[in-house]
């Protein structure tokens, strides 16, 4: 990442491949400021019949598959799922961990790349941050969906009550609740801060209901020096502060398992292992979204270029390797520990009736990325990246599936060994949450400027060499 932030002066007189890449990433074919604004606004107001069909279909699916099925679930009981002794957790928790994992990369891509000044992040930070927020929205439903008595879910919240009853702060589930709430709030603020100038931009160029919305959301942004200075300070504070929050959230999700007494779960490496998995699946999801946005949203071919997908593809490759390392480490130490239950469990994963899930996990998370992502040509082919990143996310879903139901079913009491197979209501709910995510994203893509115009322009101006008369003036990036 850092290698790509080299000051342009080094390569100024020897235009190398690296320079070429940076040129594409930063769009050194700048267009006038107003045109950029128009392009982004255009992408928001431009709707096709295909778009409305997608919105309609997704709305129906969310209403039936998710909300309808959830209502039925609340009305009848958790028994309509495929859960049974000993698999008390199934698709519900698998999907929960999956979405929380997805929601990680938004922050990762945006905050970490911002902190490290990785310039290629600029055009797609917004898309990634939105993914965080909506991923959390889809994920935060699951701890509620899976409750036996969801109507009293607020008992997990520390609120003042007549009986002085508090939640059990020793329970990882309470940590989970607090961590996810914190993350949802902070990532929403983190999404909102860099959005302010763009909202103001949209406010000044729209009329009617859009104008009303943007005027309310832009909080009276005028773009004075003082406002910019404060905004930059706030963004940089948040970019630093949200990173430990992000790491803590998935660590705490992993503690739901690691703090347990279940063989195969109480592994000390689960925290970092889950984080790496979350980033792997999340960065892959960012690529998936970028490819889809590029293909469907107007004017996006200018903002999102194969070089961006290429740069993210390298990240995915690195994280796939890191994931493989953590997987191997977790596996080896558990196996070497030699507990009967864990050894039986590991051979059950690899040779039991659901072993295909375990092998698919390794295939999708390791073999396929390693075979494809080393190749620059493939990394720059959007449809290849779409397929690879979707497969990685399927692989990561399988990873959580292996960790949760397949591990629960093979514990210390052989009398209570059991297999788990999801039933239709669970699958419907899981698909419904995917539809919810897509629907929210579709709606947001027409309401929120998907590209942070000011950040893109900042990048373009910071790295372009200015000539005043015949003198070359050093640019911001060189001064940094």
């Amino acid at each position: 990442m850092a290698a790509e932030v080299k000051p342009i002066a080094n390569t100024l007189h020897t235009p190398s491949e690296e320079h070429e890449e940076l040129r594409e990433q930063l769009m050194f074919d700048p267009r006038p400021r107003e045109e950029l604004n128009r392009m982004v606004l255009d992408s928001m107001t431009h709707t096709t019949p295909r778009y409305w069909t997608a919105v309609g279909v997704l709305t129906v699916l969310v209403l039936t598959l998710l909300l309808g099925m959830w209502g039925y679930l609340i009305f009848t009981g958790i028994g309509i799922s495929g859960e049974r002794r000993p698999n008390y957790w199934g698709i519900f928790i698998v999907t929960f961990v999956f979405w929380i994992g997805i929601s990680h990369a938004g922050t990762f891509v945006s905050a970490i790349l911002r902190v490290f000044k990785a310039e290629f992040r600029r055009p797609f930070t917004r898309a990634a941050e939105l993914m965080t927020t909506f991923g959390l929205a889809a994920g935060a439903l699951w701890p509620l969906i899976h409750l036996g008595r969801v109507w009293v879910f607020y008992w997990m919240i520390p609120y003042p009550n007549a009986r002085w009853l508090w939640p059990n702060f020793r329970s990882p589930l309470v940590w989970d609740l607090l961590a996810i709430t914190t993350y949802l709030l902070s990532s929403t603020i983190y999404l909102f801060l860099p959005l302010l100038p763009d909202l103001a931009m949209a406010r000044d160029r729209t009329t009617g209901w859009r104008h009303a919305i943007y005027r309310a959301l832009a909080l009276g942004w005028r773009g004075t020096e003082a406002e910019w200075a404060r905004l930059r300070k706030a963004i940089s504070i948040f970019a630093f502060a949200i990173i430990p929050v992000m790491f803590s959230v998935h660590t705490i999700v992993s503690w739901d398992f690691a703090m347990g007494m279940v063989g195969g779960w109480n592994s000390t490496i689960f925290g970092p292992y889950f984080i790496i998995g979350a980033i792997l699946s999340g960065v892959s999801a960012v690529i998936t979204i970028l490819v889809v946005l590029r293909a469907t949203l107007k004017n996006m071919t200018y903002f999102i270029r194969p070089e961006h997908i290429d740069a993210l593809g390298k990240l995915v490759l690195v994280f796939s390797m890191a994931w493989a390392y953590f997987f191997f480490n977790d596996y080896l130490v558990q196996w070497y520990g030699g507990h009967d239950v864990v050894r039986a469990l590991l051979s059950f994963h690899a040779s039991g009736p659901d072993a295909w899930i375990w092998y698919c996990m390794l295939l999708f998370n390791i073999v396929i990325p390693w075979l494809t992502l080393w190749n620059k040509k493939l990394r720059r082919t959007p449809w290849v990246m779409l397929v690879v990143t979707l497969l990685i996310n399927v692989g990561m879903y399988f990873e959580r599936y292996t960790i949760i139901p397949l591990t629960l079913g093979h514990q210390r009491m052989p009398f209570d060994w059991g297999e788990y197979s999801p039933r239709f209501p669970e699958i419907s709910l899981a698909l419904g949450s995917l539809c919810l995510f897509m629907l929210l994203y579709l709606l947001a893509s027409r309401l929120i400027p998907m590209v942070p115009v000011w950040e893109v322009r900042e990048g373009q101006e910071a790295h372009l060499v200015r000539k005043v008369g015949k003198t070359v003036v050093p640019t911001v990036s060189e001064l940094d």
Partner: protein
Amino acid sequence: MAEQIKEQVNERWGMVIDMNLCTGCNACVTACAMENNIPWVGEDDAGYGRGIYWMRIQRYWEGEYPETTPSYQPVMCQQCGHAPCEPVCPVFATVHSEEEQINLQVYNRCIGTRYCANNCPYFARSFNWFDYSYQIPEPLNYYLNPNVTVRRRGVMEKCTFCVQRIHAGQEQAKAQGRAVRDGEVVPACAQACPADAIIFGDLSDPNSRVSQAARSQRSYTLLEALGTEPKVIYLKGEGTYGG
């Protein structure tokens, strides 16, 4: 100062199950179901693994077919002194009772995260997947024991060492102004056991029948290495009757 510290007179309830005597007849399971209002979940769900049992007979086959011998072990909540289910509950629905020194489930407080059931190494917990109490046809509902809560759907339940019987025994003793006698409190499973394989009593009294049995050289606890400190102690059988 001295009079403020009340002497601890609480019993430490415990159970000994003699595997030499157990024949795996399931009488304890039936008695437990009757005593504690354990619902029928129906044939399909029971077959699917949703049967609600506070105690069950684990049956294993030993040896290669056709030379197999069955072995049985009744397993219920082990009333761990250091229970894995307790810290994981977010709402204190599964708690350690200081009074009886056992592990209790507060049905009204349970929100159904099922975390406790995952974390129980003995799989002693059962979940109410549906509302079963409404499925009891009319006159049959008179079988329900008025001393035991009828659980609704979405909550976890498990063996309580028949806490209602413990309380009844304590109250009777208190009314007569004496301590609870050994053998006065008998849970349903122990009462029903035809072989008298289940002994229940106060482990803090070294002379009680259960304490004497627990000191046997044959005694062991389930999954001892986990450090859960169970209050159910098994006496190893010689396998004569499959125990």
